[in-house]
């Protein structure tokens, strides 16, 4: 309930945030919406020496089009993603996923940058970004770099983000075809037991391309390659179900009190089938 003592600085700009981080040393942490970090601090599971609050850097809060990409600033809240007509048209998966995160309070405080940087395999947005072939834009003392989502997530709560760096934006290609995010959870505000992000392009009732990202099916968000391949050419319920069942070929997912690995795989196949059908509808 009471965090251990820490220092607090409010950054005025991206450059200022990076400078404050470097001054604060390795126990410095960025504070975005606070919905992942603060609960850990309250339980003293996280004990940063310095919090650099980037919540008031308005330059990081935007949704904009750049040719065939949409760029989303890191401090854009889940609510803003869900509420953006522009994003809803250009990248409906991202908006649909954001709409299902947590509860209204969480969506109004939590940010896409904070969620992605936290790299929780049970979070919804990482799987969507994986299915969307998104790029993660990172600022550091030495300038800017960009990493594919597939390379960014490296393990549970581990990413390519290095000490002193700040995740500044997400770049997503404009979506062709339909999309859907479905998750299975016990309570509306829970993390997903399994989540499925699906992007599907089809021609004449048959799938021509599918991208499937999975939430909470491993230590990182997982791209279901075997399922994607099998979905090409599928169209009716039986063929889609057959392709979805190939989720079995992935590395076994984790087990916990809500789902054994076998049940989790089974749920993933059910949800893939439903998400693909929904994306094609």
């Amino acid at each position, binding site marked *: *309930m*009471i965090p*251990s*003592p820490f220092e607090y600085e409010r950054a005025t700009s991206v450059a200022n945030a990076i400078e404050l981080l470097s001054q604060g040393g390795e126990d410095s942490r960025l504070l975005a919406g606070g919905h992942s970090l603060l609960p850990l601090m*309250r*339980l*003293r599971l996280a004990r940063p020496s310095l919090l650099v609050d980037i919540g008031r850097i308005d330059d990081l809060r935007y949704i904009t089009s750049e040719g065939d990409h949409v760029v989303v600033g890191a401090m854009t809240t889940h609510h803003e993603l869900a509420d953006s007509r522009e994003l809803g048209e250009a990248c409906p998966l991202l908006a649909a996923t954001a709409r299902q995160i947590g*509860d209204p309070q969480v969506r109004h405080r939590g940010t896409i940058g904070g969620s992605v940087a936290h790299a929780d395999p049970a979070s919804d947005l990482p799987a969507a970004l994986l299915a969307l072939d998104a790029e993660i834009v990172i600022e550091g003392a030495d300038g800017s770099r960009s990493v594919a989502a597939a390379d960014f997530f490296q393990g549970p709560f581990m990413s390519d983000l290095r000490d002193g760096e700040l995740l500044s934006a997400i770049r997503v290609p404009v979506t062709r075809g339909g999309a859907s995010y479905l998750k*299975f959870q*016990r*309570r*509306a*505000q*829970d993390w997903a*037991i399994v989540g499925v992000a699906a992007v599907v392009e089809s021609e004449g009732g048959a799938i021509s391309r599918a991208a499937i990202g999975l939430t909470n099916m491993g230590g990182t968000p997982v791209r279901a390659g075997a399922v994607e391949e099998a979905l090409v050419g599928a169209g009716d319920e039986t063929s889609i179900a057959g392709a979805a069942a190939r989720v079995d070929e992935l590395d076994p997912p984790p087990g916990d*009190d*809500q*789902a*054994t690995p076998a*049940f989790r795989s*089974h*749920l993933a196949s*059910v949800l893939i089938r439903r998400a693909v059908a929904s994306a094609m509808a």
Partner: protein
Amino acid sequence: MATAEKTATRYVGGGVLRKEDPTLLTGQGTFVESITVPGMLHAAFVRSPYGSAEITGVDTSAASAAPGVVAVFSGEDLADEWAAGLPMAWPVTDDIRIPDHWPVAKDTVRHVGEAVAVVVAGTRAQAADAAELVVVDYDERPAVVDIESARADGAPKVHEQYENNDSYTWTLTNGDVDAAFAKADVIVKERYTQPRLIPNAIEPRAVLVRPTPAASDYTVWSTTQIPHIAKVLFALTAGIPESKVRVIAPDVGGGFGSKLNIYAEEIACLVLARRLGAPIKWVAARSEDYVATIHGRDQIQHIELAADAEGKILGYRANIFANMGAYLQLVAPGVPLLGAFLFCGTYGGEAYHFECTGVFTNTTPTDAYRGAGRPEATFAIERAIDTLAREIGVDPAEIRRRNFLPKGEMVQSPGGLAFDSTDYEANLDRALEILDYDAVRAEQAARRSSGSSRLLGVGFSTYVEMCGLAPSQVLGSLNYGAGGWDAATVRMLPTGQAEVVTGTSPHGQGHVTAWSQIAADALGVPYEDVLVLHGDTQVAPHGMNTYGSRSLSVGGIAVHNACGRVVDKARRIAAHLLEVSPEDLEFEAGTFSVKGVPDRTKTIQEVAYAAWTAHALPEGEEPGLTAHHVFDPPNFTFPFGTHICVVEIDTETGEVEIVRYLAVDDCGNVVNPQIVDGQVHGGVAQGIAAALFEEASYAEDGTLETSSMLNYLVPSAAEMPAFELDRTVTPSNSNPMGVKGIGEAGTIASTPAVANAAIDALSHLGITDLEIPLTPLRVWSAIQDAKGGAT
């Protein structure tokens, strides 16, 4: 005053808005956490991370040197402070084992979360920081966390001084049970588990003790349901004269029984305030509440029904094992006894046997949680009677109809109690009519025959519960350590308002509203003119407080009767003023008028003023218009009803979704329909939570695995269906208002309705049993097993 135009307003039964809400909903409530007194220090407790361990050393030196720290104490340091261990007030048998339970452990810890040291510092954060610096050395021992392991041969002993982990065995027998079973055509034998539940009142516990060293007295603000009982037990446990202890329960954010207790932190803060001569405050974190506030349920139940070929029940056997946790909290041994009379539900029969064994384990102690013993009993009988229906091939509604106790008053139940008023069949009929039962069954059949992956099921719970605790003599016969009465004082103020002083201690129920309705009607004053005082032992000196759905049917009756005494006295004074005899007066809507001379009147407000000035009172009449009443009920009240749950089960995921939830309750006469509906909503939600979501689990070493709301699944409104509510009204004869309790009925009724519905949905697959909570994994696995592993 325009008395002639005054109409006889009836507040009781009407839909007045709650008086409490403007204050609470605008954040102007006064909770313990928000009270600050000068010089206040903050306590933080160091707690055991082990389920079972010997304390081999406590090093407080680093913590003592930390910023802001005033003092650090181990259990050994405080050993001489306690006059007694934490109290246990319900020794249900003569040979019950009652272990010492020290507020801060001296040498042994027996559950995770047991306090081993306490830090006192200038701020809450300083206390929390320093608590981390207390170094406790433990010698860990094997733990035992579940009932059956604790009763196995060679199980680790929770208390070394006893030969095993049993605390007591209590039995109850009515009639010749063996004979009933010997002649039965059908015998149903079932085993059910009642998961351990964590109460989760919205306000975590907190306590603030302010000493007045010069006067040797203590004011204790606590998040308690029982300020009056606490006052007695604080005094006895801390060794302070009762007259020197004042207990205040300010606004309290829910309890559900979890604040019907005497806790280590309350006593510890009291003795720390005495030792340090300074005010001491402690506020629990939610995670601390999870290990240091009582849990509920946690039983294993064996129930047997003996029935004839038509399904008419002849006899009952219930043998249950109740997990007490590591120690016996205030009324824990008695909790199963509150269910002991209800394993036969609303049904008849010739014979009944009940047996309960309380078992120690290395877990947080259990105690009364909303329904306390009655949800467990109701679950068992309502599940078992469905099994009986399946065995003889009749509809679950029909099996209940065949077994209902008759309509009547003081109806003898096989469990041994006389139910105040019964009319079960009419209540069931009402529910079936609202449900459109035949249509639901037709839809169920259609889904099954079409091979739908969304199966439908209907579940019943035709419950009865016993509440309105309780006739003091009956409590005495059960070895309970207190009475069951409650008290009220009603005062008319000189300017015409009424003050009602109640011994109940509301913590969300709405007593201020309901007591105002009762008093306004009885005194004939406006609802707005009634002030209800409660929760401070110096303001309301007499009371037995709030638990067991007792407040209205005991404390509310005391208010009603005290008002009657005020009116009696007012009548005498009014008669004197009007120069007639009291019998010549009529009293209506607050006005006394002379029979046959309606323009000769005195209002009760005028009488109140006259009683205050005392210029012209009848001979021998005392000044003032005040009366006191203590009501000791002649019987419990026995609310009943029919709850019907309709579920859809997604056979692909195992998810159980409640598509309809219908509750037709009968709590006798209703004082405030909105409050009753709210109690049913909340109660049903908690019962659904037990059926679908909540289950505290322990690792074998005694670690509470479900240590936060992340994985202890308290549902939200989003997981609840829209409730369909209706009522029948069968007035109680246990009190003059004909009221029964409603605070726990929803929780008692709902869990088996949901479980029965899920089993009903899957019964055609051969599934006859599902453990609660009905997690998707459990339900999906049961479907897989039933299908022989095919997906």
